[in-house]
């Protein structure tokens, strides 16, 4: 399925930086005083445009919180988050909603689709909500890429778990967002279906020039990424470029061992 597709440019403001999103000194804390828990502790991170970034870390490391903050789903205690050149920290709900609708795509671990809508309706939902017409040719390509052409009229209940996640991927891609966030998108899938979905994400980066940020704790999933960020105790502690599953696993073991001895 290799094809000579050119990387699509995002319509809009013209000259774009190589950084799709960035976090500057981001702190996220819950509670106050004695019970204060810091989930993110002065995190600085740049998400490169057109790259597949994985965020890893043990449970409670703050990896999901970081993603939620980057995606405008959660608010930060202090620091700045910028999406392209837009600062999203401090935006009101209305603006944030619009931002999510128009510039961000989501793939969750489970329950990604509305049970009342069929696959195609689910895919076009963000654009329908925005009152935009989907780009027919693009939509067809996305659908074809994720291999759902024959199942567009099916309801989620009639699709397998892997197919459902592929619909979710297609939905995220269809609106051509600047950035897609995945929260353990393959967490509920068996390894074959998971590999399928990850393959599509990889291809969408390579072939469609999509920017993707994915939270995962699965080294195999992380190995699909261009870059892996390691989070521990709310801080970025390491990163790795062009990883393989074994490298990721070894690094994880290291952290685990260090975590236990410390």
């Amino acid at each position, binding site marked *: 399925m290799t094809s000579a597709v050119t990387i699509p440019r995002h319509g809009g403001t013209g000259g774009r930086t190589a950084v799709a999103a960035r976090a500057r000194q981001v702190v996220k804390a819950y509670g106050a005083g004695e019970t204060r828990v810091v989930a993110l502790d002065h995190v600085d991170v740049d998400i490169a445009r057109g790259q597949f970034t994985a965020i890893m870390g043990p449970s409670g490391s703050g990896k999901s919180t970081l993603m*939620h903050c980057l995606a405008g*789903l*959660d608010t930060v205690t202090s620091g700045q988050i910028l999406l392209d050149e837009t600062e999203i920290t401090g935006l009101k*709900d*209305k603006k944030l*909603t*619009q931002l*999510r*609708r*128009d510039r961000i*795509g*989501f793939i*969750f671990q*489970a*329950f*990604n*689709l*509305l*049970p*009342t*809508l069929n696959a195609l*309706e689910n895919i076009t*939902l*963000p654009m*329908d*909500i*925005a*009152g935009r017409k989907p780009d027919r040719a693009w939509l067809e390509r996305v659908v074809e890429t994720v291999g759902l052409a024959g199942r567009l009229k099916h*309801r989620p*209940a009639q699709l397998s778990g892997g197919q459902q996640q592929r619909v979710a991927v297609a*939905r995220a891609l269809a609106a051509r967002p600047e950035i897609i966030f995945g929260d353990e998108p393959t967490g509920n899938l068996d390894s074959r279906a998971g590999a399928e979905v990850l393959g599509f994400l990889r291809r969408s980066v390579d072939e469609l020039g999509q920017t993707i940020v994915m939270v995962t704790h699965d080294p195999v999933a992380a190995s699909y990424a261009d870059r892996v960020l390691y989070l521990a105790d709310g801080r970025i502690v390491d990163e790795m470029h062009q990883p393989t599953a074994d490298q990721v696993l070894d690094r994880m073991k290291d952290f685990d061992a260090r975590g236990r001895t410390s």
Partner: protein
Amino acid sequence: MTVLKTSMRNFFAHKGRMALSAVAVLLSVAFVCGTLVFTDTMNTTFDKLFTATASDVTVSAKDASDTGETRSGNGRPPTMPASVLGEVRGTDGVKSAEGTVFSTSVTVVDAEKRNLSPKSGAPTIVGSWNVNDARTKKITSGTAPHGFGQVMVDADTADQHHLRLGDEIGVISAVGTHTAKISGIAAFTVTNPGAAVFYLDTRTAQQTLVGKTGVYTNVNVTAASGVSDARLKRNVAARLGGAYKVQTAKEVADANQKSIGSFLNVMKYAMLGFAGIAFLVGIFLIINTFSMLVAQRTREIGLMRAIGSSRRQVNRSVLVEALLLGVFGSVLGVGAGVGIAIGLMKLMGSMGMNLSTDDLTVAWTTPVLGLVLGVVVTVLAAYLPARRAGKVSPMAALRDAGAPVDAKAGRLRAALGLVLTGAGGCALYAAAADDRAKDGSLWLGLGVVLSLIGFVVVGPLLAGGVVRALGAVVLRIFGPVGRMAERNALRNPRRTGATGAALMIGLALVACLSVVGSSMVASATEQLDKTVGTDFIVQSDSGQLITPQAVRAVKSTPGLKRVTEYKVLDVSLTTPDGRTTTKETVNAADPTYAQDLRTKTVAGNLADAYRPDSMSVFEGFAKKHGIRVGSKVTVAFRDGRTARLTVRAITSDDAVIDKGAMYVSIATVARYVPSDRMPLDVLVFASAGDGQQRAAYTALKSALHDYPQYTVRDQTDYKKALKDQIGRLLNMIYGLLALAIIVAVLGVVNTLALSVVERTREIGLMRAIGLSRRQLRRMIRLESVVIALFGALLGLGLGMGWGATAQKLLALQGLNVLQIPWSTIIAVFVGSAFVGLLAALVPAFRAGRMNVLNAIATE
């Protein structure tokens, strides 16, 4: 024990989700208890009043009713000669006796001729100030009436009309108008049920009310010490020799209580009926709540089953929750019921009937009934969901329990629903086709019940089609938000069906009654147009007869072409088949009445019935007694001699006005009834010459200015009065149905609120991918509107069907015209859309407030 514990925990964990069900139980129980407490309190109040006001033994004229005065034909109260008082005084065991005169066939006006009678329908009483009445009243200012020019008024009436000492008052009776100045004001020391009471001195009362002195309407007897009322009654009755009615205090009180009690009973059962409808609607709400709780808890129940709970235990745990809900709602409901009763008493107070909360009567049966009813209904309603909970397989614990999409509503349900609806339709058809009213109403009842149950059963199946159709019309304009609302309404047809059905019941009754009501107005109007030839009708709205002075005033009005007097006489009839029927009435009128009301005849000419010694009978009577034109009927006038009259016409039974009347001319009656016993006119008809109607109408009104107890209406006014009367009745019923509709609306709120909870994750997802709060709220509102419109459509359709059937059935009684009040129907339909918006207010707000992250994270 663990069952109880888990039930308790579940109940308290989900108390928010049960809140609206509890309110539904509360409202229904409160209405039942409120009705019972209110009517019991009324009974207590009247009981006290009647016991307090009656003297030990009362003697009254033979033809007085048990409760007091009878409206005799000549507008004067039935009396006895003053000599009776002397006889009573001489009777053994009598301590004292006092003759009194009173009448309720009176109108009392102030100096500006404004009517002082209570608007509540309570009586106006004018009587002589006497020892017995003085026991229950206290003169608060001025003095008791003394002499011809003085009158005393009760304090409530004085307050209400701002009457002061020295103000002029006119007492209008059959005798004439008597003016007097207020000499005193007396306050009731017992509860005044709203009557307006005026006192004159005995002589003035005799002259004003009866027209002659030396007569009494009552003799109040007080027993000597040691003499029982019963013995006193025997002594007095023996002395008077059966010519008069003699009653003990208890008998008078009981008779009064009976007459007011039957009215209170009608009111009680009517209100309980509406409470029953509210209960019925509440059942849907409870079923929905428990179904949704069970669905949301499927995994939990599966786990319980997996670790060894039996079906019975699961089933029972749900029922125990229902029991808790029932007890909770009912206990609050009983309390609220007392509140409602007090509210109703205050409302009566504002209408002039002063009920004291000291008399508040809560029988022990009232809270017991309320509790039992509330608990039983709640547990019964929860039975089906509980059974469904018992059927949850242990596997459910392992499956992902996302919101189930229950699209299949079962073929059995469809078949059953269609059979029931079909049977209902057939029964309604049979009712419409039946030409005997009695069988027909049985069919109608059966048809109403069957079609209602059928619609409820088949509702979830109809939901699909109806919601799609509504969606195509209403929701398309809202784009994807509308589409999602439509899908949400469709995703669980059983839930949408039950929610809509709750609303359907109330609105079906509204539609049915509005169809019957407007058909009544239309039929009567048509009849009026077809048969009534008179221009003006003079009558008293309080049922008073028309005095000769007023009739003279009408007759001397310029511009009138003809004036017809109309009287009703009590007679007994002996027909050619040899049978005698007593307690019949004949209608005596001037011969011009044949032009005023063009009654159809099946034989003979109606004008001939007004010839000397002639009469007419109605079709049914003629058939029953084998009467033909030319037959002779013996007519014994109660207040006169017996006549032998020839039947000259037989009137058709296909009539609305004067149906079943038998006519005779006043001239004929005058040959057999002495003039002093000739009854007064019930109605007077007048017609103006061509083109002079307007002037005559004005002239007639001013001619009757001095007689405020009578109202003149032209045909337009008359139709309007008729319409208003039916409108008032309908409004009262709509008001009572409002309870059922409120419960149904709570049901819509309930369904939406629980759906929002159930769809927390979905809502989170939608918000995450960019649905704005406003769009989310709109989506929920639209879903609510669609459910409400679904219920309205079904209800209005069903109700119009019932109404049309009832009209066809009642066509036998003259309800010839079917008129569908489209404006009402459309207003109700549009109104339900607004109700839907209102119901969605809180659920939509809460959904909008949901935290996106929490929503996504919810298990």
